[in-house]
């Protein structure tokens, strides 16, 4: 099979027919037995009918990336078989609905012409002549084992047992597919039913129905003897405690709750808005406080109360960032989340926040661009854009999390940076992080403390007043940071304006003040370089003298780490430099790591944007580029091949990866 740890499971079907639910049952079942999973979701910008699929890689130890070649493909529609059959490794299992055997390729309108032609070509046929059985044959010739299932028979049995109609049972095709694949691998039915209960939140009627389907499927698989014929078998692992199954939208939302974000604006957009929906679902927040924590607080209500987050759907993204900024002015930790076109609309608002030193956090999920682009596909195309977005020059922090777990901690840090340095912070993620699913052991809510920076209280202001001093929001200070006052605090007022301003916040065009204010604002970038620990800005993984250094940012991290493990078993020692704070750029550290190493830049975009940034900041030019821009994430298997080519001196300077369906 493949050189990587673990196995790859793949399910596919039409949008709206339960692919995600199916994957959810599968991952839950595996987690229940203690397996670590990584799931990757692919779907069209469409509500119903287009092809959607889901990879799950699983292993006994943690996995951080997906593999495209499958070990088990379970398909309840014909399209999935046409699209994915030939991606299997030798010895893989392909489970399908035998009723589709004679389905014609040409009858499936959701398959792109280009793809249909390529499939036909691969089979040496014309599109009009291709049947599903043809592709099965081809798959078998690759050493893939084909398992026909009689969906009709399975569901008929359920129908007779439950009095459900066949039409309504069609909704459980996904459960048949999942159950069959689990049965094949020797997973226990009882555990599966437990997983089903979990996924359907113990709603008895639904759970019972789906359990019945699972049971019937198990019977069917057993009756055919499939369950004894497949090499890969699951076993119950010993594990302390449960596994948390989360995607990036969720870890960011959880990070916001923990960080104390209490105001979130959004305008619906894929793949950002699920974060906001999750927050809205959890708008009432449990608190853990003691009397000692708040000895003097007036709102002692806090002690027996809950907190809350207001999640506000705006009319557009301009309103989203400006409303979040308006809220932030009052001192609340405020944020907005968006993607692609949304950020393009936020540019002017970002500048106002920068000019007025307002801490506002923008979580930006990159997707395939430009323009509407590929709304549901992934890319890392916005690095330069977010660093330079906005006319004129103002400080900002741009963080790029490497994975779903890191996104949780980075979210909390984002608010800390925003408030300590009083500037907009952009947390740069992507669709891969947003929509992938990973099993993690725990989120450590005490790992990152809350740091709110300098804020003057009512009491501080009273003191000032008694000294006859006026509060100045933009006071010139040593550090460039001026103590904040939350708008609405007693004993003060202040002003803010997008125009250049004096210390009080009033408009000025005075060239001397202007220059000082520019320097005050921009100097905060130096302060960040001085104060933020380097491992929050960049991180090196690997031996001191690697055979080859990979440099990247964002969501490629998991894939690269998984690759390093595999390659080291083969005797190749890779190093990996992950840039976490892309702006301000950690140039000294990066220079010291790159030194005179041979290095490869790895990015999910066309122009190798980080490569350019590194050259701008350090002068180093990547020895090799590995890039991809077809809207699909670099997979572990294709990166393995590309890096091997580099190591063996067979790679061109630029390799463009092309995998993905």
């Amino acid at each position, binding site marked *: 099979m493949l050189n990587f740890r673990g196995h790859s499971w793949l399910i596919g079907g039409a949008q709206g027919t339960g692919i995600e639910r199916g994957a959810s049952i599968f991952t839950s079942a595996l987690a229940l037995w203690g397996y670590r999973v990584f799931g990757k979701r692919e779907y069209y910008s469409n509500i119903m009918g287009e092809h959607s699929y889901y990879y799950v890689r699983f292993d006994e130890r943690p996995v951080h990336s997906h593999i495209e070649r499958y070990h088990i493909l379970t398909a309840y529609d014909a399209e999935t078989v046409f699209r994915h059959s030939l991606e299997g490794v030798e010895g893989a299992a392909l489970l399908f609905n035998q009723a589709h055997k004679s389905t014609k390729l040409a009858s499936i309108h959701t398959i792109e012409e280009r793809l249909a032609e390529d499939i036909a070509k691969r089979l040496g046929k014309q599109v009009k002549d291709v049947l599903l059985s043809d592709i099965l044959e081809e798959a078998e010739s690759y050493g893939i084992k084909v398992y026909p299932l009689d969906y009709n028979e399975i569901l008929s049995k359920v129908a007779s047992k439950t009095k459900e109609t066949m039409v309504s049972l069609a909704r459980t095709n996904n459960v048949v597919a999942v159950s069959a694949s689990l049965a094949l691998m020797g997973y226990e039915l009882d555990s599966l039913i437990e997983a089903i209960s979990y996924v359907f939140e113990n709603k008895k009627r639904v759970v019972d129905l789906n359990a019945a389907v699972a049971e019937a499927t198990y019977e069917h698989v057993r009756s055919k003897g499939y369950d004894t014929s497949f090499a890969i078998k699951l076993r119950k692992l010993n594990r302390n405690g449960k596994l948390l199954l989360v995607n990036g939208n969720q870890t960011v939302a959880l990070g916001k709750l923990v960080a104390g974000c209490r105001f979130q604006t959004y305008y619906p957009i894929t793949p950002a808005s699920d974060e906001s929906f999750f927050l809205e679902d959890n708008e009432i927040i449990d*608190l853990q406080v003691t009397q000692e924590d708040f000895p003097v607080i007036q709102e002692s209500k806090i002690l027996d109360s809950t*907190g809350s987050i207001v999640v506000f759907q705006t009319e557009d993204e301009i309103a989203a960032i400006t409303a979040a900024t308006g809220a932030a002015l009052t001192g609340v930790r405020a944020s907005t989340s968006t993607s692609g076109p949304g950020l393009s609309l936020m540019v002017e608002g970002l500048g106002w926040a920068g000019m007025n030193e307002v801490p506002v956090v923008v979580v930006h999920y990159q997707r395939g661009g430009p323009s509407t682009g590929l709304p549901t596909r992934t890319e890392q195309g916005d690095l330069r854009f977010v660093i330079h977005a906005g006319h004129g020059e103002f400080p900002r922090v741009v963080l790029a999390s490497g994975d779903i777990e890191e996104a949780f901690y980075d979210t909390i840090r984002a608010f800390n940076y925003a408030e300590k340095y009083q500037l907009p912070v952009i947390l740069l993620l992507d669709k891969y992080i947003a929509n992938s699913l990973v099993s993690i052991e725990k989120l450590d809510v005490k790992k990152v403390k809350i740091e709110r920076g300098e804020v003057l209280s009512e009491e501080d202001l009273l003191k000032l007043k008694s000294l006859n001093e006026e509060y100045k929001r933009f006071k010139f200070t040593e550090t460039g940071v001026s103590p904040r006052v939350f708008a609405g605090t007693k004993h003060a007022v202040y002003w803010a304006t997008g125009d250049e301003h004096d210390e009080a916040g009033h408009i000025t065009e005075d060239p001397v003040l202007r220059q000082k204010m520019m320097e005050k604002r921009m100097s905060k970038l130096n302060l960040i370089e001085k104060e933020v620990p380097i491992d929050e800005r960049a991180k090196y993984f690997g031996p001191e003298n690697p055979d080859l250094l990979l440099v990247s940012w964002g969501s490629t991290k998991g894939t690269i780490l998984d690759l390093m493990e595999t390659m080291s078993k083969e005797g190749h020692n890779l190093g990996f430099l992950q840039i976490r704070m892309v702006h301000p750029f950690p140039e000294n550290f990066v220079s010291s790591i790159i030194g005179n190493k041979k290095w490869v830049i790895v990015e999910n975009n066309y122009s190798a944007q980080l490569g350019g940034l590194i050259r701008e900041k350090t002068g180093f030019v990547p020895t090799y580029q590995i890039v991809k821009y077809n809207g699909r994430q670099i997979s572990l298997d294709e990166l393995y091949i590309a890096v091997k080519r580099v190591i063996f001196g067979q790679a061109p300077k630029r390799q463009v990866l092309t995998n993905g369906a």
Partner: protein
Amino acid sequence: MELKFKLTDYRTSVHNNWCPGCGDFGILSSIQQALYELQMDPSNVLIFSGIGCSGKTPHYINTYGFHTLHGRALPYAIGAKLARPDLEVIAVVGDGDGLGIGAGHFVNAGRRNVDFTVVIYDNEVYGLTKGQAAPTLKLGVQTKSLPKPNISQAVNPILLAYASGYTFIARGYAYDTNHLKELIKQAIQHRGSAVVDVLQPCPTYNDIHTKDWYAGKGNVDPKTGKEIPRIYKLENEGYNCVITNDMSEEEISKKIAQMIIKAYEWGDRIPVGVFYRDLRFDTFEERLEKRIPNYKAYPPGKQAISNREGYPIADISKIVQSLSV
């Protein structure tokens, strides 16, 4: 009775650079006077503006003042209000600012009924960029700053506010500060989104609707031979358009039809006063309170988020639990 705040408490020492005779001065002092008469603590008031001559207003008022982006005062203001529903939030906008580039926010804010006040500086021109036609300038009118007669029809702020869902709609006149002040006070005190459209002469660029014109220039009473002021007060003519929950559909329809006729009135007779007051709707904040029972008591902007040692106090364990297998 001793008043806690003096009128001067609402003024700043910032040099005011509006043109001499600008109607903005009247609006400014009406706002200050209203805040004074309502004895609002300056630290409890947040004024947001967009960009334009009107946009400079907050710098002249001694409250928290935010001079934001062209067309965006409303979302900034709404964000602040929702974070701190206990504060008084006012947005002042130019007619280009609020009804041109900002029209999308204006319409969508109307639907929410957030408890705040919008004041429109209606001078029919883009003042700060030197006199182009604003959306309130009527078709075919050619102010001295325009090379050609205006090619677009005007939007009627009263009507647009009504169609957008504002629950308090009034019109004032910049030079009748006493009357305008009262309107602003009512707007502030109204529970829900309130709009006050203020006819604001711009002596520099608008030579059509000038102070003199509003005062009656050319509008000669054939009987007396005297000029009749164009502006009159709705309340003086028994007009009233308050909509309440207990009114019949028919009654409401009648009231609204009447309001629309008034909204159109222009030329020799121009009504000012309260056009519309709708008491049927909860505010956005009240609706939020239905979802988050302690929203008003413990709003976002007042919540503690960390404990003595700086650790987060949000407890996500139940959520984590629900996501764990």
